[in-house]
């Protein structure tokens, strides 16, 4: 773990974002069950993969192209809890979309989080294009596409990898493989064991990493970003992880996963494991943990109240922002 550039302070911050994301996630489900949030998509279980990779990037400068699972990622990338709640409740000041998109459709120009639609793998080519501009304009930026393993069945995933490898573009393809595309298991998406195996066919490195270990994810992402920045082209990273909750608040995962399987994975909850490790290393203790938990609770309560009281969009704005001129 030497030489990875991670100070104790940064590791504590990583842990903070993982816990924050889980707390925001929990609150979003509560708001759903109260009938206030029509639908919720979680990052519950993916926090280590998302936060670990975010910390390896030049946040605010490098572009990320997230998908709907990436709450912990966008929080670690600078989106505020208030912004997340405004988005969830479709409020006018939602910076992601002004209340136009479904929850978990992230986008924030200033933070360099590219807006996304709902068709999976479209963002893979966008990240490639962002990187194409970086190569031409020599702006030193790296772009990262985040996606689930189900979306690797899409043509655009393969087109993006191929295009990026041919032109040696500074882009990272970051797969969060949780084993299920809603209910369809990975073995019905692909006849190979690992998404990372795809990389060889396009002439780029494919790396498998434990997606529940933020430090390992950090390290492989950092290496991929260095490769990209030095002109050696793209990398495909496969972070193996698990989602602890159904695909969305409209889904019931008991139809397709055994409770035993979920319980087995929960033993490897990234929050629990990372907390244990940082406690052993003396980075976390009862005092700073208590303070951190209180801070997060206050933040989530504040953001919930703020968003609930924030105005809804004016129907008169329906026709706004179709064209610039």
């Amino acid at each position, binding site marked *: 773990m030497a030489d990875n550039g991670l100070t104790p302070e940064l590791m504590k911050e990583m842990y903070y974002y993982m816990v924050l994301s889980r707390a925001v996630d929990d609150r979003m489900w509560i708001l759903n069950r109260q009938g206030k949030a029509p639908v919720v998509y979680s990052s519950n279980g993916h926090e280590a993969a998302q936060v670990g990779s975010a910390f390896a990037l030049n946040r605010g400068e490098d572009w990320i192209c997230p998908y709907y699972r990436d709450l912990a990622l966008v929080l670690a990338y600078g989106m505020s809890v208030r912004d997340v709640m405004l988005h969830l409740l479709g409020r006018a000041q939602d910076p992601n979309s002004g209340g136009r998109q479904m929850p978990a459709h992230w986008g924030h120009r200033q933070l360099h989080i590219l*807006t996304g639609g709902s068709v999976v793998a479209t963002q893979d080519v966008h990240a490639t294009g962002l*990187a194409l501009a970086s190569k031409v304009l020599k702006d030193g930026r790296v772009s990262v596409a985040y996606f689930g393993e189900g979306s690797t069945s899409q043509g655009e995933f393969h087109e993006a990898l191929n*295009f990026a490898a041919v032109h040696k573009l500074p882009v990272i393809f970051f797969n969060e493989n949780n084993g299920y595309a809603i209910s369809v298991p990975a073995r019905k998406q692909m006849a190979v064991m690992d998404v990372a195996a795809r990389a060889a066919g396009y002439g780029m490195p494919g790396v498998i990493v434990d997606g529940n270990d933020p430090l390992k994810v950090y390290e492989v992402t950092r290496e991929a970003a260095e490769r990209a920045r030095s002109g050696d082209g793209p990398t495909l990273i496969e972070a193996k992880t698990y989602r602890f909750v159904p695909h969305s608040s409209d889904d019931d995962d008991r139809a397709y996963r055994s409770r035993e399987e979920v319980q087995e994975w929960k033993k490897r909850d990234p929050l629990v494991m990372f907390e244990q490790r940082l406690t052993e290393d003396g980075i976390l203790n009862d005092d700073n943990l208590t303070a951190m938990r209180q801070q997060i609770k206050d933040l989530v309560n504040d953001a919930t109240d703020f968003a609930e009281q924030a105005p809804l969009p004016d129907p008169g704005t329906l026709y706004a922002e179709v064209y610039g001129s």
Partner: protein
Amino acid sequence: MAVMSYLEAIRETLRQELRRDPRIMIYGEDVGVRGGVFRVTEGLQAEFGEDRVMDSPLAEAAIIGTAIGAAVNGLRPVPEIQFADFIFPAANQIIQEAARIRYRSNGDFHVPLVIRAPFGGGVHGALYHSQSVEAFFAHVPGLKVVIPGTPYDAKGLLAAAIQDDDPVLYLEHKAAYRSLKGEVPSERYVIPLGKADVKREGTDVSLITYGLMVSYSLKAAEALAKEGVSVEVVDLRSIRPLDVEAIVATARKTGKVLIVHEDNLTGGVGGEVSALIAEHALFDLDAPIMRLAGPDVPAMPYSPPLEHAFMVTPEKIQQAALKLARF
């Protein structure tokens, strides 16, 4: 002022724009060394280098999808789809991504992007090298669709499309590339998107059209003038947004309207134009609104008699316009 073909006007505009703005980048299949299958981009890679005129892998969704990303990150990409018929693999990227990004981000993001694509038939291209695809895309708010009918307009509209901050589909008629010639000023100029142009004034019948059919309609109008029929020819130039004012004005003026396009009849631009006239000019109409368009068959066949039977020609336009004039 030099006389140029429609193709030369497009090439010289691309050259002028590449010189004007270093953020402009052209890429697509065969656009580099080969200069494009129609030679529209001939010589541009030699002048501007591989970074700015680039051969891409043969994958349309990737061409458009990467152009969206590149546009967000500061370039002004002008990707080429080799034939409009091949645009459909990229339809999701055009319709659901490029056209919706401004709206879905509430104006936080926008996509300055010009997609060039040769379209249209009459060149023995058969089903997959002859299609007119404009109506599919004209249905999409957030997208602009531009189709020049003369070399002069080709230049001014392309420059306008490139400086526009929204995605523009710029369709070039293959049969027009080398057959249409006209005077084109050497200095840069722009023709506003969404503005039609009255290419010929007349009082008896209005022909509303665009693309190659502009020149065909002008031929028909010339022939009809000899029979004492005065024909007005309105070139839409942009089919999204449509120039409602110009459409209604010509309908009011003559009271008799024939809409001409090569794209299939049903669900084509003609239907929209007819609806606008019915909504805004009913009490000035002196005859039913008529449409002359490509037949409702899946696409243009290959063998010459079949192809000819499909194509809208100056003779067919002349016949239809005469019938309307005599109504």
